[in-house]
Every structure is written in structure tokens, then in C-alpha cells.
């Protein structure tokens, strides 16, 4: 497999919040499958806008996204949905759909070629995110964290089976851990790391640097203010200097017993300019 | 007079004539069969039935048939413009006689198709209309003799009323008020009320428009009617004559100074039935008295 087929490339992308807004970020980078890439950055830096552009919901001010060697605009929506599953930041579900029904909606892109185990897929996806016991509950009545896990299960179900052409499946998630409690944050991250190790391309917008350090391979830091993004391996990019420069917070790096680096953040802000 | 018949009335007449010409012989036979069950639609038509003494044939009337009192106790088939085919047929009528506005047309068609004689009487707000009603009802109910008598009576009455009106020294300026919700609704050209005022020797002060329209206080003052005409039901709805005169828009009219108001019962006033000569006569004399 060539690199192009297994990558999601941003070519000279200019990210803005609205069609006429200021440029928030410039991105010229590519993300590979088989890697878990985290997108980090301060509030308003353009992380969610970048994510919207990556999945094709919005058009960039300049530049383009190339997915598996083809420009994103040229991918028919129905085909794209078979290759790429997206979980939005906060999805309000209208009407009284149950969790199971919402997860089943993830199978919609594959409705013309249903596999023998459609029901089984849905169940496995729900078990993976720990929402099996909520199968018959209305999604609208669930807590924020439970809802997020249902939508994660839906995304997993959407990208469950290997593709006929053998290319990688992609999971793109906008803040999947935002509403989750501690236990489920780590469970979710572990799940995504496992998928990446199995060959998926995983891109997730995260708030928590430590989760990225522990579970993600690569990171894309969006500093905001129209600057170019910083991309590389987590340990390489997320240095105390970078953190102080981008987030304006002092961090102290700790080496954990299991070999993973984690930060403890201090209260002292960066020196006033 | 023909020009005043609306297109719809022409269509009704044409439909009636057409059906009379095109129906098979069976109908012609039923034309000779006496009518034993009759439905009348329209207050004036019902009045004629009672005037000819044919009320025993009457099985139902519509909601506008309020006179005489006995008509109120007959079964009601609804409002004359919105009849129900099944409702009419459930009463097993032999014939239905109605004013020109009876409808909807499709319901009348369906009833005709079921073998019922349906006759509508063209309206033109004239005395000839009354005579037509008398003749038609007389023919349908098989009381041509009584119809002839009544017609002669009415013609005599009418001739007398007309001569009285013609000999009057003056034509009072009158305004007919239909109802008083917000702005008063007054009668312009082309309405039954307008025709009535003209027949009674008055001059309708609002002739710039057709139909019933709301009139502002200023316009009413500009129109300056000497006498106001209203129905008794209308005055009652307002809460009596005193309440009527307390309406602010009337204060600037000449009629207000003299409290010149003529009231009459609505169906007699506007129905164009057998009480028309009486109504015109009363209206005429009361208007003259009020503006003396």
C-alpha cells in the first residue's frame, strides 16, 4: 500500500471559523492510517473547524483535503461514509430513538450490502463502549456521557467490517471524551488506540494533553491566530516550552512507572508580553 | 334587469332548464305526480308555502326560514349555501324549492340525479322575484289556484304601495346598517337592502360601492343620512335602541339629531317574500314620519 492510499492529507489548508472569518490555522500535513492522531489546541484555535473540513462538512478558505489519493470533494457521500465514520461533538437526537436504534443507524452506509451479522455488529459495538445495558433506553433521556458512548458505538458500527479494497477504515471524532467520566475516558482512548493498532486511521480532537500523551501516536497542535500547526509524535511536540507557548500554562513533566510521560500543570501563567 | 343576474344565477337557471330538457321520460311522469314531501330553502320561499296553505307538504326547511313561527319547528337541513346531499335525501323529498343562492351546486346535482325535483328561483331584488316565488311554489305544490289568488292580491297591494311612494313629496336620505361589529356594516349597491330603500322611495346615501362594507365615522358624517334603517334583530344584538344611539359614529349624522331610526324584522325586510308590499309600505311611511 502506498502512502497516498493510507493517508488523509491537508494541502495548504487555511482554516477559518466562518466563510468570511480570519484564518485560524494553516495546515499542510498528512495523517497516516495505523496511527492515532490527536488534535490539540486552546479554545477557539480552530480544532473543530479543522475537523469539519477534514470530514468534508465545510470547505476551507484555501487548499484542499486529499483522502486516499482523491480530493475529498470528489468522494460521493455514500461511498465516503463506508470508508470514514465521524462522531460529532454533541449530537442531539430528535424523537424517542433508543440507543440500539441510534447505533443501528451507523449501519446505514452499508444497507445495500448487508452482512450476515448486522445485529451482531450492533451488539458488539455497544458492548465495546459499555452501553449494552442502555439498548432500549431513549437516547434523549441519557446523561451526556452515556450519549457520547452511544454515538461512539455508532461510529464503531459504521466502520466495523474491513473494506473490500483492503484500504484502511478511518474514525474521526470531535471531542469524544468531553462528557465522559474518568473511567470511560480511558476506556474510550484505549479502544481508539486498539483500533489504530489494528490498522484504522484514527483522528480525534482532544482537550486533555495527558490522554494524548498516553494513548495517541501523533499530535497536531493548533496554536490558533493563523499560525501553522505543529505536527509530530506526541512526546516530541508536547514539550514544556510548546505547552507554555501555545496554552500559556506551565507544565511539569513526570515519568510514570509504566514508562508513559504525563504532565502536571502549574498555576503560574506565562510572563506577560 | 337581466344584466343584474349574476353569472352564477344564470348557471343555476341554465342548469335547471338543461335538466328539465335532458332528463328522461321518467321525470316528466313524476312532474305530473303530485308533490307530497317538500323541502324549502330560503326564508321567502318558506313564507310562500305557508301563505298558500301548503305547509302540510313541508318536511324540512333551512336555517334562514324563520317566518312564520311554525317554520322554526320544522326540521332544519342546514344553511342554504351549505346543504348536505344525504341529509336532503334522508327526508325523502319529492321536490326542493330554493332561493337562487342554495348550494353547493354539486349537492343539488346529486339530489337531482336521485330523482328529486329541484327548482331554484332567480333573484333580482324586485317585486317580480316575489311573483316568481309564488308561481313556482304554487306550481310545485299543485296549488295554482291559491297562487293565482295570492298573486293578484299582492299585485294589488303592490300597485297601491307604488302609487303612494310615487306621490310622496320627498325622498329621504337613508342608510341601511346591517350589523355593528367594530365599524358599522352598511348596504351599498346591488344589495337587497339597497333595492328595498329605492322601492320605498328613499335615496341610499352610500352608492359608491357594492355589497355590504364597513363605514368609518367620517364617511358616515359625510354621507349625512337623514334616517337610519336597521333590523330589529340587529338592534337587539346591540342591546336596544338607546345602546344603538350611543354609538359614536352616529353622533354626527342628521339622523342622530332627530333620533330617526326605522326598525323592521329582518326576514320581512330583506327576504323579498309575500310580505314585501307590506314591508315597503311600512318602511316608506315610517321613514317619512322620522324625517318630518
Amino acid at each position, binding site marked *: 500500500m502506498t502512502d497516498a492510499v493510507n493517508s488523509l492529507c491537508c494541502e495548504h489548508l487555511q482554516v477559518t471559523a466562518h466563510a468570511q472569518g480570519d484564518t485560524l490555522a494553516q495546515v499542510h500535513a498528512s495523517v497516516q492510517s495505523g496511527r492515532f492522531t490527536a488534535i490539540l489546541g486552546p479554545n477557539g484555535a480552530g480544532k473543530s473547524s479543522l475537523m469539519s473540513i477534514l470530514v468534508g462538512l465545510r470547505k476551507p478558505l484555501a487548499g484542499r483535503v486529499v483522502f486516499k489519493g482523491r480530493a475529498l470533494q470528489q468522494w460521493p*457521500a455514500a461511498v465516503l461514509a463506508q470508508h470514514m465514520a465521524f462522531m460529532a461533538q454533541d449530537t442531539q437526537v430528535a424523537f424517542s430513538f433508543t440507543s440500539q436504534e*441510534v447505533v443501528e443507524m451507523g449501519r*446505514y452506509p452499508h444497507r445495500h450490502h448487508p452482512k450476515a451479522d448486522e445485529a451482531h455488529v450492533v451488539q458488539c459495538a455497544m458492548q465495546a463502549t459499555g452501553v449494552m445495558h442502555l439498548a432500549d433506553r431513549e437516547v434523549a433521556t441519557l446523561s451526556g456521557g452515556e450519549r457520547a458512548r452511544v454515538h461512539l458505538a455508532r461510529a464503531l458500527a459504521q466502520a466495523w467490517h474491513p473494506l473490500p479494497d483492503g484500504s484502511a477504515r478511518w474514525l474521526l471524532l470531535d471531542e469524544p471524551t468531553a462528557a465522559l467520566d474518568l473511567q470511560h475516558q480511558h476506556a474510550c482512548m484505549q479502544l481508539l488506540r486498539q483500533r489504530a493498532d489494528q490498522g484504522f486511521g484514527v483522528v480525534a480532537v482532544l482537550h486533555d494533553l495527558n490522554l494524548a500523551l498516553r494513548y495517541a501516536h501523533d499530535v497536531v497542535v493548533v496554536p490558533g491566530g493563523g499560525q501553522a500547526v505543529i505536527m509530530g509524535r506526541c512526546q516530541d511536540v508536547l514539550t514544556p516550552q510548546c505547552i507554555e507557548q501555545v496554552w500559556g500554562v506551565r507544565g511539569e513533566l513526570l515519568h510514570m512507572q509504566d514508562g508513559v510521560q504525563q504532565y502536571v500543570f502549574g498555576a503560574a501563567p506565562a510572563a506577560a508580553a | 334587469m337581466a344584466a343584474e343576474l349574476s353569472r352564477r344565477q344564470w348557471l343555476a337557471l341554465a342548469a335547471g332548464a338543461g335538466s328539465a330538457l335532458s332528463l328522461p321520460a321518467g321525470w316528466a311522469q313524476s312532474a305530473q305526480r303530485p308533490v307530497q314531501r317538500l323541502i324549502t330553502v330560503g326564508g321567502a320561499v318558506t313564507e310562500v308555502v305557508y301563505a298558500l296553505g301548503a305547509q302540510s307538504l313541508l318536511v324540512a326547511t333551512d336555517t334562514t326560514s324563520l317566518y312564520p313561527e311554525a317554520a322554526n319547528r320544522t326540521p332544519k337541513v342546514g344553511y342554504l349555501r*351549505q346543504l348536505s346531499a344525504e*341529509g336532503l335525501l334522508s327526508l325523502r323529498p319529492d321536490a326542493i324549492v330554493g332561493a337562487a343562492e342554495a348550494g353547493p351546486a354539486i*349537492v343539488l346535482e346529486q339530489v337531482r340525479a336521485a330523482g328529486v325535483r329541484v327548482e331554484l328561483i332567480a333573484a333580482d331584488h324586485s317585486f317580480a322575484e316575489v311573483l316568481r316565488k309564488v308561481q313556482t311554489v304554487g306550481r310545485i305544490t299543485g296549488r295554482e289556484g291559491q297562487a293565482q289568488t295570492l298573486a293578484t292580491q299582492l299585485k294589488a297591494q303592490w300597485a297601491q304601495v307604488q302609487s303612494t311612494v310615487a306621490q310622496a313629496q320627498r325622498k329621504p336620505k337613508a342608510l341601511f346598517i346591517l350589523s355593528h361589529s367594530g365599524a358599522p356594516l352598511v348596504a351599498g349597491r*346591488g344589495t337587497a337592502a339597497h333595492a328595498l330603500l329605492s322601492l320605498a322611495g328613499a335615496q341610499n346615501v352610500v352608492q359608491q360601492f357594492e355589497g355590504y362594507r364597513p363605514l368609518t365615522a367620517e364617511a358616515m358624517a359625510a354621507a349625512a343620512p337623514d334616517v337610519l334603517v336597521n333590523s330589529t334583530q340587529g338592534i337587539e344584538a346591540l342591546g336596544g335602541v338607546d345602546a344603538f344611539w350611543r354609538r359614536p359614529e352616529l353622533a354626527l349624522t342628521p339622523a342622530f339629531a332627530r333620533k330617526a331610526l326605522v326598525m323592521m324584522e329582518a326576514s320581512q325586510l330583506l327576504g323579498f317574500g309575500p310580505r314585501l308590499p307590506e314591508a315597503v309600505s311600512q318602511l316608506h311611511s315610517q321613514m317619512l314620519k322620522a324625517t318630518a
Partner: protein
Amino acid sequence: MTSLWRLPSGRLHPQVVIGGGVVVTLLALILGSTQGAYAIAPSQLLSVLGNGLLGGSTSSTEHLVFMNIRLPRLLLGLVAGAGLGLAGALMQGMFRNPLADPGLIGVSGGAALAAACAIVLGPLWFASLGFTLGSWTLAVSAFIGGGAVTLLIYGLAQSSGGTRVGLMLLAGIAVNALAGAGLGFLSYISNDEQLRNVQLWLMGSLGHARWATVWLVGCVVALCTVAAMALARPLNAIALGEAQAQLLGVPVERTKRYAIVVTALAVGSVTSATGVIGFIGLVAPHWVRLVAGPDHRLVLPGSALLGASLVLVADAVARTVVQPAEMPLGVLTAFIGVPLFLLMLRQFRNKL
């Protein structure tokens, strides 16, 4: 709560929903057949039906009343209710809101305005049209009016991002208000007969049913129902939000356009034949969702069936409660619908 009828979630089995819907509609049809101002005993009814199907003697009044007056009316009520229920379900799915109504996209308002124009201005402006179309003038005008206003509102809702449902709602409110003002003006310049005709048309009635109308409206509604089923799964996905649905591969713009066209056709044809009948499109989908869940593969056909049943029952009441007169159907559906609507608001007040 598992049983023969119910799923673990408490909802009815899909087969029970559809089967039950068909049974209820048939019962309503039978009820409507036996009710009417003209008394026809059930035994006579059977013989009339037999004659009608086998082409026997046709002279009895019972036959005439049933075959030419009551049966077309029943069938028109059935297709009208089906069309309105279906359109209501489509609009609620598209707007992602259980309080949506087909009237929001302006079909009924436009149809009413066009009908009033035909009644009031027709003799002045389109005298020749009246002669060429005859008794169909009113229905054709109403249909065209409904379509034109829907097109206007659809056009107003277009933006660079496609059809904005929120914009459509606001445009619908504005245009409906304009249609109302137009109606008011036409009422003002009309004479009494025209005014009364407009009012009666607005109140809705099945009394104008004849076989030609039944066939026409029936064909349109049948086509719309079949076409709408293709929208069932896309509408399910759209409940997740239009962005998320698009990323599931749902052609969201096409789905919305399709839903609007089907609604305009169904409601336009029904309204042009019967006048304005309200609340069926609002209430029927809600009840179906209560017993069957929100899956549009059940809600769409279920709303059509329940809508048909509701109209049949309401019309049976309208025809008999003040017999030999009849009450306008729209008035009755409003009397029933408004309390139900308020009940729904109470249920949903926490979710709104």
C-alpha cells in the same frame, strides 16, 4: 414487558402496527358506510355493494345515495386523511420536531389564498378560465396556489449551505401571515355570497366528493405514499442532525427537496378537493410514534393509516351529529385536535 404484541422496549411489534392500522382503517370505513343522514340498513348495504360490484340493477335510491354520495365521500375521506397524515410525518421528520405540521411549508395557506382568489376574483379576472375548467376551477386554482407558495418558501430558505430548515420555518410563518392578510383583503372586497363561499371552503368539507375527484386525489396520494417510503431511513438518520446524517451518506439536500415535493403534492391535492382540514398531520404521526416508536419505516405508513381512520371517524360524526344538516369537517378536527395538541405540548414542555 414482552408479550405477543409488544417488544421489550414497550413498543408494539411492527406487524401489529401496520396490521392494526389496516384493521382500524377498515373498521372506520365500515363505520362510515353505515352512518349517514339517509338510513341504509346493513343488509341493504350489502346488496347495494353486491350490485355495485357485479353491475346489477341500479335504480333504487339506496344504491344512488350510497354509490354516488356516500361511497365517494368515504373514499375521499380515506385518501385525504392518508395524505395529510403522511405529509405530517414527513414534515415532522424533516424539521426534526414532533410539533411540525404540513402547513408550515405554506401548502394550505397558499391553497386557501388561491381558492379565495378563484372565488372572489375569478369572475372578474378569469371569467374565461371558469368556463373552460368549469367546476374544476376552484380545485385547480387551490392546487396551483399551494404549489406556488411552497416553491416561494422553499426558495426563501435557500442559502449557500443548501435548504436551511430553520429559515424555512421563519419564511413559512411570514408567507403564511401574508396569505392570511391576502385572505382578509379578499374577504373584504367580496360580496356576501363569495364571502360565505370562502368561509365555508376554509372550514373544510368532504361534501364535494365525486368519483373524478376521488380517483385523482387517490392516485396522487397513493403515489406520494409509495414515494415517501424511500425517505423513511434517510429521515431516521436526519434525526441525528443534518451534518451527521450527511456523514452517514444520506443525501440530505435531495431528501429535503423530495420530502417537500411529496408533501406539497399530497396536501395540495387533498386541500384543493376538501378545503382546509387541520390537525390530522399534527396528531396522527404523534400517536403512531407513541405506540410504535419513531422509526419512519413504521411512522410513515402508520400515520397514513391513522390519518385516514381519523378523518373517516370525524366525517361520520360531522355528517350525523346535526343531521339532516352537516358540520364542516375542519371545525370538527379542530375541536378534537386542539385539546390533543395542548396535551402534547404538556408532554413535551420539558423537551422543548
